[in-house]
């Protein structure tokens, strides 16, 4: 009997021996998506009840596609990529066959409908069939359709990334007019272009106040340097002179003060002005020149360009400790720094063998990367309010124009600013043109 039990036990062990080695689990970590762009397909606009699309809806679709082209995290897909062509019979999820879209790796689909002066647009996620954005606009006319498309794309960007500073902010820049330079503003897509100063001379290096109500800039004329303040609500600008006749690169701090390079002691140092426009003590004083201050959102970190160690290099001041650290070590000529709102990245222009190029430095991991590649000269980099897009001036296509890239160095896109050279772009943190 004992033998029997023993044999049966042996058999059981043999029979289930495999199962004793239990199923195994393997843990895998994936860092960062393999593709940082999602595919979006804009379906042709439709009319209501099977009617042909209105020209307004079609033009809305074209503007939306143009806007999407500015967003490096979206890739515009084409209908020809979808097996069997247009998979929709209408505008809503029930009218769309998502299967071929999933097979074609389309992540998002945008439907546009229009009747009369009304436009409706929806974006669905093809994998979950969820509605991400759905908007209806009424009383749209041909003149306002671009603005409506921008608003819709801002909403889409907000849903996808939580940010929409690109669409919500205003770009100010200096543009050649009548032999001098005046300041202009426009949306980041170049819409609503408007000349805001008529000072004569050269208006350069604009900087927005945090609330977007004021622009500070330098006016250079026969009278020397003057600080200019343009008020958005009154649309008037006022110019002020300072002792020493030098007033370079004024910049608003997040709390509304102005930091500016003044030559009060024989060489330009950066000073904070009080409400009476009087200079206090210098920030990070030295025997060499210091210009181009740029602050993070807290206002406690300031990057600037200084020749305190010889050639112009980028430095960072910690306003809490007063400690100044050198940021750039490569290159002999690094200028025009712009600090990202979170204080992590600095973009600046570096003179290379092939002209000025934009570089970015990550202050946390201490790594540097070139993000603009010419040809010509790339200058005056400036972060957008999200610290993602970087605008700069470039002579790559002849005259100097404004381009936008990202801090990852995505292909630069031209921002239309009309005829004439445009330079020194600055992003306004506040809401865009109404």
């Amino acid at each position, binding site marked *: 009997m004992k033998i029997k039990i023993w044999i049966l036990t042996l058999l059981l062990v043999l029979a289930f021996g495999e199962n004793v080695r239990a199923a*195994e689990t393997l*843990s895998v970590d994936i860092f960062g998506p393999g*593709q940082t762009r999602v595919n979006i397909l804009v379906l042709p606009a439709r009319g209501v009840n099977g009617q042909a699309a209105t020209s307004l809806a079609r033009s809305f679709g074209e503007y939306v596609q143009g806007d999407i082209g500015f967003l490096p995290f*979206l890739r515009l897909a084409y209908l020809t990529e979808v097996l069997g062509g247009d998979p929709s019979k209408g505008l809503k999820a029930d009218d769309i066959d998502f299967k071929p879209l999933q097979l074609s790796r389309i992540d998002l689909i945008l439907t546009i409908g229009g009747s009369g002066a009304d436009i409706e647009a929806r974006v669905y*996620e093809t*994998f979950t069939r969820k509605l991400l954005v759905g908007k209806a606009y009424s009383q749209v006319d041909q003149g306002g359709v671009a603005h409506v498309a921008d608003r819709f794309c801002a909403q889409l960007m907000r849903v996808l990334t939580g940010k929409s500073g690109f669409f919500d902010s205003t770009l100010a820049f200096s543009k050649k007019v009548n032999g001098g330079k005046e300041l202009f503003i426009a949306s980041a897509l170049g819409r609503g272009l408007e000349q805001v100063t008529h000072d004569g001379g050269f208006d350069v290096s604009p900087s927005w106040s945090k609330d977007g109500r004021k622009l500070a800039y330098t006016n250079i004329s026969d009278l020397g340097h003057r600080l200019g303040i343009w008020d958005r609500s009154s649309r008037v600008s006022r110019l002020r002179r300072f002792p020493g006749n030098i007033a370079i690169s004024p910049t608003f701090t997040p709390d509304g003060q102005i930091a500016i390079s003044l030559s009060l002691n024989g060489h330009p140092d950066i000073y904070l002005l009080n409400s009476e426009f009087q200079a206090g003590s210098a920030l990070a004083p030295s025997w060499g020149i210091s210009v181009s201050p740029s602050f993070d959102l807290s206002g406690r970190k300031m990057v600037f360009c200084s020749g305190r160690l010889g050639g112009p290099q980028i430095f960072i001041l910690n306003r809490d400790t007063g400690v100044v650290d050198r940021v750039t070590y490569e290159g002999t000529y690094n200028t025009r720094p712009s600090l990202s709102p979170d204080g992590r990245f600095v973009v600046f222009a570096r003179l290379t063998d092939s002209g000025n190029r934009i570089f970015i430095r990550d202050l946390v991991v201490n790594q540097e990367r070139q993000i603009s590649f010419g040809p010509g000269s790339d200058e005056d980099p400036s972060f957008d309010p999200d610290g993602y897009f970087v605008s700069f001036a470039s002579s790559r296509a002849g005259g100097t124009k404004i381009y936008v890239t990202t801090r990852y*160095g995505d292909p630069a896109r031209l921002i239309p600013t009309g005829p004439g050279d445009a330079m020194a772009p600055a992003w306004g943190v506040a809401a865009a043109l109404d």
Partner: protein
Amino acid sequence: MQDTRQTAGFLLSLALHALFVAAAVFGVGNSMKVDMDKPMYTVDLVSLNPSEDPAAGDTGEAAGAPPPLAEGETRQADQSAAAIPSPPTAEKLKPEPLVRDDAKAISEKKVEEQKKLDKKVEEKQPSRQDLLKEALKDVKKDVADKSKDKGKVQDALKDVRSQESKESKKDAVSGELAALRKSSGGNIFTAGGTGPGGAGGGKGTGAGGTGSGLMSVYGNIVKQIIKKNWRYQAMGTETNVAVVLEINIDPKGTITGARVVQPSGNPGFDDSAMRAVHETQALPSPSVKSLDTLRITFNLQELGK
């Protein structure tokens, strides 16, 4: 009396069955004397030694292990044993290059691992060769005699075949490694890459695999495949986002199910991970058969950018 005989017969039958099952489970022919304490197959499975590369047979004798058997060759031997009773010759067991030459190149880390393994292989190698020779001798003898039961022959052949399948499995892994190395620019252990500016730093991340080196190699293969299909509109502004998915795979590597076990708090991000798995559909068959669950953490972190 009859009952006693029946019981005895039953017991005898059980004992014989048990022996048979034991032989089948451990893959040991009766005629082979094997020290069961020696984990000889484990060495083969984790072995990625370039010197064991069958392709090495072109230039010289393999240093580590006996020549791997080509699938076709063994089948031929099998057929000839079953149908035409002519013994397989030693010539038929010559190595056949199954893996591309570039499989020889291997990352330093693996080579180090290999060196350790080599020592083990060296210790066990003579017995393995002896075993094979012995098995072949048995096959020859048995087939020539025609008098022994076919079970023995088949046992021996089964053994040869099981070894062959393990060898070819190893070859398949080497092949995958070679392919991966080719596609990822020389180092499969590098995640991410260099950005457009060329200054972006790739950081090495080993798979969080538990257990053998093969598991970690498989983990890397899985990582590469799924990462490739993962699309997310990264603006790089939110970096501390991670979702953990559990994926079930069958022995062929087909994904049979996936679920979020630890959401990120961002449904769109979770969906992107699910979409990547959905698009992947199938993975290579796992090298460890008992592996049926993958726990994948999708981190939104900047490594390549």
